């Protein structure tokens, strides 16, 4: 994993330099920079964050302080397929927890872990995606599924897993 990110970083340093340099000399840039880095890598690799901090002469600790504060930032790589279960109020009162429990079990995710060991799936919950009238909502790879039933969603995820196996 380590060398892989190092490699990735090296091949795209030029692009990253561009990303970072456009923020030089402007105020309040920590969050947009992290957002850009994450957009690029899919998460925040340590090397990239530290490299950017050094280049902009902002303390590394500040970057980490910010990165750990906001739920949008991921410090570890994420799975190939992202399954997002809405846990907003409307979805909760319509049974989103059942869906979450079911998927957690189906994907064999131990407590505190949300990406499968084979990196095929990341299961996450978010607060309200703003489609409450079709609650409960599950987003599978950016496709919004409204009025979702646990069994149907489980089936979809299973199918995705099978496709990955064959690929």
């Amino acid at each position: 994993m380590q060398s892989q990110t190092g490699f990735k970083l090296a091949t795209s340093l030029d692009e990253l330099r561009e990303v970072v340099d456009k923020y030089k000399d402007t105020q309040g840039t920590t969050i947009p920079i992290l957002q850009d880095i994450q957009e690029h890598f899919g998460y925040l690799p340590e090397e990239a964050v530290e490299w950017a901090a050094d280049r902009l002469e902002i303390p590394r600790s500040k970057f980490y302080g910010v990165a750990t504060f906001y739920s949008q930032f991921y410090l570890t790589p994420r799975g190939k397929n992202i399954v997002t279960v809405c846990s907003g109020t409307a979805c909760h009162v319509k049974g989103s927890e059942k869906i979450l429990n079911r998927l957690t079990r189906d994907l064999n995710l131990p407590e505190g872990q949300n990406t499968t060991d084979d990196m095929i799936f990341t299961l996450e919950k978010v607060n309200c995606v703003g489609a409450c009238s079709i609650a409960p909502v599950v987003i599978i790879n950016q496709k919004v599924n409204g009025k979702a039933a646990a069994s149907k969603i489980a089936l979809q995820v299973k199918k995705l897993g099978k496709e990955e196996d064959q690929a």
Partner: protein
Amino acid sequence: MSAKSIEIMVCMGTGGIAAGGDLVMDAFYSQLKAAGLEANVQKGCSAHKVGCRGLCAKDVLVDVIVDDNKATYEYIKEDMVERLIEEHIKGGKPVEEWLVKEDYHNFHDKQVKVVLADCGNIDPESIDAYIGVEGYKAQEKVFKNLAPTETIEIIKESGLRGRGGAGFPTGFKWELCFKNESDQKYIICNADEGDPGAFMDRSVIEGNPHSVIEGMAIGAFSFGASIGYVYIRAEYPLAVERLYLALDQARQKNFLGKNILGTGFDFDIKVKLGAGAFVCGEETALIASIEGERGMPRAKPPFPVNSGLWGKPTVINNVETLANIPAIIRNGAEWFASYGTEKSKGTKVFALTGKVKNSGLIEIPMGTTLRTIIFDIGGGIENDKKFKAVQTGGPSGGCITEDMLDLNVDFESLAKVGSIVGSGGMIVLDEDNCMVDVAKYFLQFTQSESCGKCVPCRIGTKRLLEILEKITIGEGTAEDLVRLEKLAKDVQSASLCGLGMTAPNPVLSTLKYFRDEYEAHLEGRCPAKACRQLLTYTIDAEACTGCGACKRACPTGAITGEKKKPHALDQELCVKCGACFDTCKFNSVGRE
């Protein structure tokens, strides 16, 4: 084909798209083209996430307008388009059975739309569409004909109060900022919309972004801000996209930028993407976040109007507050104040969701009763279950019970019964919802969103949550209830910011109105049958037909049995997920 004009409007909000709105749109495009019909297919609906007209539970909603005769269809899928074209557009006869029904009209009849007036009617991606409905007229009036103090006076007289939660009078906020001398002032639009059951701000930006921009420009001009920010959740990609587009269009037409409308006044708006933290909706935390820091609130005073972004005077207003501004300027303070109650003027947008039939986005005059909202507009409870409570104000709010349904919805009345208007989430609960679970849900939310700066909130919410968890698994004691109540009050009074101060509200209000449910949990019972650990599932051998549905649904293999013979459930293996209960068509799975 004799029709002179054909117009199709497809609801393309998040809700509409999820229901297949883009597929329907494509079907119309290709089939109308193939048939050689001239038509104007547009993304007519805007408040869309919720579906354009607010009723996105019925998506995909489609308007077919032939020569100014409009028919609205519900639940449209792409394979239905062909028949709509054949029978309605070519044949001139609307497809009766797909038309919206009475409840669609009931949903709209009792609403009064100010903020949402054009959401769902105009293409949000076209500035000309906005200008076509008097858009930017108010800005012109303010910039060319009114002195700043006159504008502020109009807003004060209208009685508009902030829609972001606290209800602070907007005109006064602007005046305070106006009176502060400074080389630089800012206006910030708060589009963080952190309440996890609310989506009106998103709808407004997705459906009518220019109204918010115009409101900001009017504010900026009147108290002298040259830079504005919209702080918007990154989780709202469609809103962000439309906002950027609208800003570009407004710049091109010189409603933003340098020397706006020849007045010599410069003003532009930047967009800041929030990174997912509820507390950043709080104004001082939001400012810290724009400055690139961890989004932690600080003690007030000083208030942002005195020392805000980078220490400069700053007005922060909610999206809906700002979207009201152009209408007030256009129609006058008196017109606005003619809606609502004595102290709460105008209309308010609510996200009516949960166990209600017509769930969606609604806008009503302040002072409308809950009964009207839930039973007339909302059409009553889904599946004709029994109404239990309505939760307003999200994690900072409380529950309102059946005997209070005739309460007027306004800032004062809701506060009196221990809830708040808040940002406008309104979640209807039925007999299947456990109130202890609802309280636990909100506590989980606030506990994980606590920024950790002050101890009462950081530790207090954690302890509260622990007690609630203990109760929902049936291990709570009578002392726990006493401790819960006392601690809730302590957290309320000792926390630094609004998050901690209001976090205990859901607990206190459920304790007040549903104490019996808490007590039942102490005896190991969940009356609503919602708390997993307190339930036991069984199969009634008499009623079981052996169809095998539950066996297939069971994720742990706890159910066994031969086909057409009664099945059995192994309690050891059962994880109480309820899949069998939900699948059984013969009511033979029991739950106690």
